[in-house]
Structure formats: structure tokens, C-alpha cells
């Protein structure tokens, strides 16, 4: 394995604010091919997994990103005096509808939740968790919503297909009712 390439890739992932994709790295290192870069990223990820440090490389939003392990949360949250506002249950429910049913229009979300979601959509847009995908060819040309890359990044998802399938959830749902 090309050790210098590995360190260059590591430095890029380390310095990047967003998860870095193999493609983005490739653009910075035109003489390398995507396969090599992918291999190096996988190797780095495995290395940090074994190193037993306080942070690892995780694969989110189709890219790679350094982040701390969950068990250090209390200390870091205290340090950052977590001004990050948490999402309310209502916001989380709306977000999951968008995630699972996208592309989706507001009216459909409201049908599923049974309540108005205007303010929540606005909040989710503001937080960059959902985005406007386009417009539906219906009267009034309603806006279609979908999730963003930030959504994947925040919720530790590699891509949309790594969302737990709705079938699993259905089973869970039944259990819930039975108990």
C-alpha cells in the first residue's frame, strides 16, 4: 500500500469540514484512480477502528469523516455547551416521513401526520435536513421535498438505502400494538 497516498488522503479527510467522497479526493489527486483511493479510505477506516483512540473515521453521506466515539459525548457536550437545539418529536416524525416517502409534497405529509406541518418544514429546511427537490405537475405546482446530504451526515447514514427498511418497521409497529 502506498503509504504516502494514505497519509495525504488522511490529511484531507481530517481537514475537511464535510464528509469527503472518493470522487472529491480523486479530483484533488488526478493522477490516482478511484479504486486506489477507495482502498486507502477503507484501510484508514479499519485502522482507526483498531487504534482505540477517542475518534474514528465513519462512512456517512457517501463520504468519510472523522468523528468522536459516542461514549465521549457527555464531556464534549459540556465543553460545547451544546447550543444545538434538539429536534422535537414532531420534527423528527416529519423528517422520517420525508426520508421514507420522498419525493413528497406537504399535503401528503400532513395527511400522514394528521396535522399542519408548515412550521416544521421550515425548520427542517433551515437546518438543512430537507431540501426542495422540484415541483409536482399538479394544480398550484406544489413543492416536492426530499432529504439532504446533511441529513445523512447527521443521522449516521451511508446513503438513503441504509435507512432501516419500512418492512422491519412494520414488524416493530405490530409488536408495539400487541404489547
Amino acid at each position, binding site marked *: 500500500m502506498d503509504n504516502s497516498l494514505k497519509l495525504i488522503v488522511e490529511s484531507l479527510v481530517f481537514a475537511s469540514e464535510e464528509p469527503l467522497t472518493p470522487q472529491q479526493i480523486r479530483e484533488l489527486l488526478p493522477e490516482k484512480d478511484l479504486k486506489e483511493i477507495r482502498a486507502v479510505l477503507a484501510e484508514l477506516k479499519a485502522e482507526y477502528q483498531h487504534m482505540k483512540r477517542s475518534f474514528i473515521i465513519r462512512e456517512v453521506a457517501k463520504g468519510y469523516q472523522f*468523528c468522536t466515539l459516542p461514549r465521549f459525548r457527555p464531556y464534549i457536550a459540556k465543553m460545547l455547551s451544546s447550543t444545538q437545539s434538539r429536534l422535537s418529536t414532531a420534527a423528527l416524525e416529519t423528517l422520517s416521513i420525508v426520508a421514507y416517502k420522498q419525493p413528497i409534497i406537504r399535503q401528503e405529509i400532513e395527511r400522514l401526520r394528521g396535522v399542519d406541518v408548515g412550521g416544521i418544514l421550515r425548520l427542517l429546511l433551515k437546518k438543512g435536513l430537507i431540501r426542495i427537490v422540484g415541483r409536482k405537475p399538479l394544480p398550484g405546482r406544489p413543492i416536492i421535498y426530499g432529504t439532504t446530504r446533511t441529513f445523512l451526515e447527521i443521522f449516521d447514514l451511508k446513503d438513503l438505502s441504509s435507512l432501516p427498511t*419500512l418492512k422491519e418497521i412494520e414488524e416493530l409497529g405490530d409488536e408495539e400494538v400487541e404489547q
Partner: protein
Amino acid sequence: MPFETKLDVFEGPLDLLLHLVQINEVDISDIPVATITEQYLEYLDLMRALDINIAGDFLVMASTLMHIKSKMLLPRRDDDLEEIEDLREEIVRPLMEYIKLKEAANELASRDILYRDVFKRGIEMNGTRGEEDNINPSRINLYGLMNAFKRLIKEKHPGAVLRFKPEPWSIKEKMVEIRDKLKGVKTLSFRDLFAETASISEMIATFLALLELVRTGFMTVFQEQDGSDIMIEVLTKGV
């Protein structure tokens, strides 16, 4: 007011219905409509008695429930039974979907969420980019763009296109915001402090918050020379 926060736990009719199904420990596909309807209406009465504003959605569900209940009380013919089943479906299906969606939301909430459970490397944003637009940079997203435009229209053409409800700005929130703004930077210009304020009431709240921060010794304001920008500086390492 304290009643409102205590009682207003149900997000909507489905949320209330699900709660009733759960406390009655009944099978969702075989809801005892009469009992549930009664309890549902009791809850609405309670809300009314406490002067809580009942959203229209709750009433729509109430009428659906009552409709089913009345159908079930009437003498039945075969097609009545079918109609009752259809009506029940109208409630059961959305409720099933609602449960699914609640599980999906729980699933999301239980993941290792960035900024809650795990954290990225802290990157100093100021001065690291060496670009001319480094002052007050905000991350590009559509919401930001939309908001920027809305703000401008509001400032320059008040009342022309839009009507705005007064926004309740709290001085306390603004104090937190000012402290956040000064995180990672030594000083901030007075002008930049107001760069994103959208309304006069917000500007006033921001200004009062600044005065409070200065009074309590968190920050100080100074001027390099007469007529130059007023600068704000953090004195103590904020909480």
C-alpha cells in the same frame, strides 16, 4: 398556561387516537369504536374546558368516529356492515401508518446523531479560508438564500408583498446568540452584530442584549479611534 403545556401533549388526532388505543390495550385492527369515541370526545371536552384551542383536525376525526359509532348502532343490513368496515378502514389505515412512522422516527432518534452523540473535528472557521468573503460566512443552502431575499424585500419594500407577524425576540436568546457569534473570534464589529437582524424589534432585542452583556462584564465595547467601527470584545471566557 401551565395547563396548556401539561395537556397539549397530543400532536394531532392520530396521536390522541393512538394513545387511547394503547391505554385501552386493544387490537388496532379491532378498535372498540364506541368506547374510543367516547374517550376521544371526553378529551376534547377537557380541552375545551381548559380553553385550549382545538385544531380543526381533531374535530374532523371526532366526526368520523361519531359517524362510525352511529352506523354501528343502527339496525344492520349486509351492505351496512360493508360500509362500517370501510369507515373503520379510514381510521385504522392512517393509524397503522402513523405507528410505522413513529417507529421510523424512533429509529432515527436512536442513531448516533452528529452534534448530539458524536462530534466532528472542531474547525476554526475564521481566517482559515483566506477568502475575501470570510466575514460572517454562512453555509450555503436554499433556506439561507430564500431568507436573504425575504429579508431584503421586507426592509426595502415593507408591506409590499408580504405580511409579517411580529416576532417575539427575547433578550436572553439574543445574549446567547451574541456569545455564540463571538465564539472563536476575539472581536466583532457592532455593524456585523446587526448584519442579520431582520426587524426593528430584533435589532432592539440585540442591542439590549449587548448592553446587558456589557453591564454584567462579559463583554466590552471600544473604538480604535473616533469614527471608526465600534468593536465588541469578550472579556471572560463565556460559559
